[in-house]
Each structure stands twice: as C-alpha cells, then as structure tokens.
C-alpha cells in the first residue's frame, strides 16, 4: 500500500510539474503573441497616418486645382435678363428688394453682392437704373476702398452674372443699366431714340466760343421757353413722354459735359450765369429753382439739344 501511495504521489508530482511547465510555456507564448500584435499595430499605424496625410495632401492639391479652375472658369449668367432703362415715377418711401431679385442676387459672391446692393441703393436714390461708370460712381456708392481694377472686375463679373449691362458710349465713357424687375406701377420706361448721328457730329465739331454761346440762347429763347425740362407744363406733368424727354436732356447735358471737358464746361457755366443775370435779372439768379430752369434752357441752346417738339418727332 505504501509503495502504491508513493508511486501515486510521484505521478502526481510529475503531473504537477508538467502542468506547471505547460502553463509557463502557454503564458510565454501568449506574451509573445501580444508583443507581436503590438509590434504589428505599431507598424500599421504610421503607415495609416502616412496614407492619410498623403490623401490629405492630394485632396488639398485637388482643392487648389479646383480654385484655380474656378478663377479661370467662365461665370455663367444667373438670369437671362432684359435690360430696361427706367425711372421711378415717385421716389418710394422704403428701399425694397423684390423677392424675385433677392433670390437671384443671394447667389452672388460677397463682393459682387455688395456692389450690386450698393448700386441698387444708388439707383433708388437717383430714381433711375442707369448712369455713367467711373470714379464718381465708385465714390458715390461708397466703394472707395476698391481699387479701380478691382471695381472694374467686380462690375465685369456682375455683367457676366447677367444682372448689369455695360455699354461703351465712347473711348473713355461707359454707362451701366442695372437689372431691376420692371414694375409698371412705380416705374416708367426711359428708352428714347438717340438723336441722329449728323446732329451729334455737328455738336462735337462746334468749338466752344464765348460769343456763340451768348448769342444763341437769345435767338432761341422764345422758341424754347416752353421746353424747359422740369418746368411745369400744363397737362404734361404726368406725361411719360415728357418725363422721358427730361431724362434725355439730363443725359445729353452729362454727355456734353464729358465732351467739352471740365474747364470748358466751367466757362460755359460762367457765361450762362452772366447771361441769366443780364436777361432775367438778379432775382432769377438768386432763386435756385428758377436758376436751374433757365440754366437748363441755356444748356439746351448751347449744346444743341433737341427741343421737346423736335425730340418728340424723332420718338414717334
């Protein structure tokens, strides 16, 4: 019995050692496995990071390319607009942007959007959706911070977007028409037929001489007395045609101003003042509204602007 017990104890002891060895081996193998997996992970992470950074760089490059493409890309018009020159019948109380227009201009880039809204406010102030493009306009709409080139580019872009039309009227002069949906209730079309070319040439060729200017208005004064734009003409106050004529005269005076140059225009103005004082007296000169009436009349004569009757015939 004692022998059997001793044999059994020996077997048990050996089994214990074997189990212990097996467990130790198993533990070591497990540790090695863990180490290996960690190493593999460590190796994999930098690769992934690298891959991601490469991807990011690629994406960045793609973005840059896209931006370059965008810059070079042609701007597509937002609308196929019909440009109508108009004047407001009466200056509206509030400045409003029609919903239809708001939907269009909200798509514009920031600078173009700002420029458009500023132009629209300007149009609203001056009660007409057209005028000359230049430094004066840039200043008037409060875009002094824009350099000339930038302003020109913005205007050009607005034209590409189809919300503004630029017309080159001469080598140095450009005019614009701003797109604003036409509303028959508040606006009047200001389209007019341009005076015949021969007539325009005649004006251009005429040298500005003091003598001529002083004499001419005297001859034409009586004929044009009723054609002073702005002067209340019975039954014509609400006449659309007469309003168009006033716009026409205003534009013609602006054109003449550009044509003769600042210094010559100042001289003409000086002559006009002297003439009005001599002919109508000092009271007219010191009454600003009357003075404007007679000054307009003087300009009509001096710059050979067609009278209302003549202009009406060309219109019809």
């Amino acid at each position, binding site marked *: 019995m004692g022998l059997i017990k001793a044999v059994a104890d020996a077997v048990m002891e050996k089994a214990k050692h074997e189990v212990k060895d097996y467990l130790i081996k198993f533990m070591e193998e497990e540790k090695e496995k863990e180490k290996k997996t960690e190493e593999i992970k460590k190796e994999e992470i930098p690769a992934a990071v690298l891959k991601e950074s490469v991807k990011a760089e690629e994406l960045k490059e793609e973005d840059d390319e896209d931006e370059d493409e965008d810059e070079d890309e042609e701007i597509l018009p937002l609308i196929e607009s019909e440009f109508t020159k108009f004047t407001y019948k009466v200056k509206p109380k509030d400045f409003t942007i029609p919903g239809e227009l708001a939907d269009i201009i909200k798509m514009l880039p920031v600078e173009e959007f700002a420029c458009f809204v500023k132009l629209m406010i300007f149009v609203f102030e001056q009660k007409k959706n057209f005028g000359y493009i230049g430094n004066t306009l840039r200043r008037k709409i409060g875009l002094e911070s824009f350099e000339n080139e930038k302003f020109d580019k913005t205007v050009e872009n607005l034209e590409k977007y189809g919300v503004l039309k630029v017309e080159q009227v001469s080598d140095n002069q450009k005019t614009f028409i701003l797109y604003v949906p036409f509303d028959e209730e508040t606006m009047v079309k200001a389209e007019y037929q341009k005076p015949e070319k021969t007539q325009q040439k005649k004006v251009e060729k005429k040298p500005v001489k003091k003598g001529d200017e002083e004499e001419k208005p005297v001859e034409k004064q009586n004929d044009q007395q009723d054609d002073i*734009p702005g002067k209340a003409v019975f039954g014509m106050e609400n006449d659309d045609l007469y309003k168009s004529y006033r716009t026409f005269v205003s534009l013609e*005076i602006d054109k003449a101003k550009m044509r003769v140059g600042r210094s010559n225009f100042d001289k003409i103005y000086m002559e006009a003042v002297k003439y009005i004082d001599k002919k109508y007296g000092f009271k007219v*000169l010191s009454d600003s509204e009357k003075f*404007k009436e007679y000054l307009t009349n003087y300009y009509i004569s001096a710059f050979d602007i067609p009278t209302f009757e003549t202009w009406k015939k060309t219109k019809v």
Partner: protein
Amino acid sequence: MLDSRILLKSLNDLEVRIMLCKSAFEWELLAKKYVDVESNIKDFFKKKKIPENFATALDTLRASLVQKKGELPPVDLSDFFK
C-alpha cells in the same frame, strides 16, 4: 447821414464776404443779404435819386456776386430732373 454810412459799410462788408465765399449755399445767403441791403437803400432814399457812390457800390457788388456764382462749381442739375 449816420444811417447811410451804415448801409455803405454793410455793402463793403458784403463785398469782403463775397470774396471769401466758397460754396453755393453761402452764395445764396449773400445774394439774399444783397437783395435786402438793396431794398434798404431804396427805402432809405425813398423817391430821391440814389447817390452815385451807392449806385456804384451796388453795381459792383452785384457784378462780383454774379462773377462769384460763375466761379463756383456748376450747379448740380441731377435733382432737378428727378
């Protein structure tokens, strides 16, 4: 006699102010003053003939007012056509 001197002085003052005038608004004020002074002078002398020195001063003043208006920047007509 004293009053006529005051009137003459106001004409002289106006002449100086016209020389210094730089804006259309200022010019209009001076033109109004000129009209007032002119009527004051006419009232003062009533039916009598206005003395030559006054008449000359008034003419000179009017001429310088006209000259000054011509020298100032041309009146902006854009409002007129609205």
